[in-house]
């Protein structure tokens, strides 16, 4: 009885009408799609642009927080997105510019080199883990690897600030500590997410490329030397 009432709520106006052969019935019959009752959830086309952007930004920010406190959670895995990795990659590549003798080929990595290393490296690591029999999907793995670059990007920002103060031995020591800590954090965070998707006898084979990947990025950050 209750189900019938629920089902007939859209037709509430018609429940009192007795239908005989000649009476014409007027009105709109709207059939609900699925189980949702509210139409405005589906017409995201009508919402203000600010809300659309904020929703995505909130999702990205939520994942950043999950990287900061890496515990086994499905937020990164289930609702993957690649906005965060793109944002982090571009930020890191931009921060690595302006180094010593950019035009000279003796300098640090170019923007394109950083981009290629991060994305191509992530793709290769993902392929590697899938070929070794991992159960994680391609884009989920890209998402995790990209988001876990966040500690290294923060370290890069800190390094640039430290370098403003000078580039002597003390600043190098500080930068070394910061980069090492963030490299360890990145590796730990990503293996927390990726490690469970591998059979136990191959876990080290999957973790090692991730370690190498973040090591290379950490090296690029540490060797950034400002132009004088």
């Amino acid at each position: 009885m209750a189900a019938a009432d629920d089902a007939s709520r859209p037709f509430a106006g018609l429940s009192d009408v007795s239908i005989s052969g000649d009476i014409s019935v007027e009105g709109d019959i709207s059939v609900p799609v699925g189980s949702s009752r509210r139409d405005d959830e589906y017409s995201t086309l009508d919402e203000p642009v600010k809300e659309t952007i904020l929703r995505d930004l909130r999702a990205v920010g939520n994942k950043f927080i999950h990287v900061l406190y890496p515990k086994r959670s499905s937020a990164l895995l289930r609702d993957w997105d690649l906005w965060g990795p793109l944002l982090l990659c571009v930020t890191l590549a931009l921060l690595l510019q302006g180094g010593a003798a950019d035009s000279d080929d003796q300098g640090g990595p170019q923007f394109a080199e950083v981009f290629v290393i991060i994305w191509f490296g992530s793709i290769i690591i993902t392929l590697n883990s899938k070929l070794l029999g991992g159960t994680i999907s391609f884009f989920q793995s890209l998402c995790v690897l990209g988001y876990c670059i966040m500690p290294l990007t923060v370290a890069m920002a800190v390094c640039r600030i430290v370098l403003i103060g000078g580039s002597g031995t003390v600043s190098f020591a500080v930068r070394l500590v910061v980069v090492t800590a963030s490299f360890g954090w990145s590796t730990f965070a990503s293996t927390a997410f990726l490690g469970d998707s591998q059979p136990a006898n191959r876990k080290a084979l999957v973790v090692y490329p991730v370690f190498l990947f973040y090591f290379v990025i950490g090296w690029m950050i540490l060797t950034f030397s400002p132009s004088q």
Partner: protein
Amino acid sequence: MATPDDLQFQEFEEAAELLSADPEASTLSLSASDNSARAGGGGGGSEDVKLDLSDDEEGQEESSELLGGQKPSGGFWTFEYYESFFNVDTVQVLDRVKGSVLPLPGRNFIKHYIRSNPDLYGPFWICVTLVFSVAISGNLSTFISKMGDPSYHYRPQFHRVTIAAVVIFMYAWLVPIGLWGFLTWRQGTERQIGGYSFLETVCVYGYSLFIYIPTSVLWIIPFEWLRWTLIVVAMVISGSVLVLTFWPVVREDTKVMAVATVATIVVLHTLLAIGCKMYFFQTAVHAPTPAAPTTPAIHMTLTPGPH
């Protein structure tokens, strides 16, 4: 009177039984002419005997299980095909790495460690690690050797990574292609003891490069005599892995060809090691510490180039 097909099939079983009893025995690999149809890099090792004369499908599958051959399933455009090349565990990879740094005269690397389960994990990641270790160590050694020079400004020299990657990957993939093609061509004319498949050749070359990773890290230490000692040791170890692997295959050939082949392998390997050392680990030309006091003006005008 048994039909010729039955006779062939019985021989096949006997060979399979003999082989399963003694896996170390050398086998004759009759690769059927449709090997070329399977896209390059196919198939297991020398124990994978395929006799298309037998109509008995069951017999063939059974024998390949007995022989432990790894057949890549699917065509080369499917994912499963490449999955079969990553069918290794951590323990196996570590075992193979250990075998590449401790070559013993009796042990053929392929027969002993790879045993018709060649993998691409080892060669690929060893090459990648070697690329970065050579580039990073070279950069560090340049920095250390120029540390005393007041006009030296540290440069990351990131272009070296690109160069190292090109050189090492070309060596690790083109040389095995050439060597495998050459050996297959030589054997094609003489039906010798089974040669190695393409993947096994790539595997041996990849694992033999492993010794250069710790060597390149140790090259940071700025003593020339130490660097040359290390390079000789590394070349001896990894060269002997290659020679021990390829000598049994080549030795049935004419003496001249056998020696020439092995010599080419060793020479190419040497060129790689020495080339890496010369390019990435250039020794600084140390200005002799002056006994007589020199004016500071001289130091200022000495502007060393980017190298």
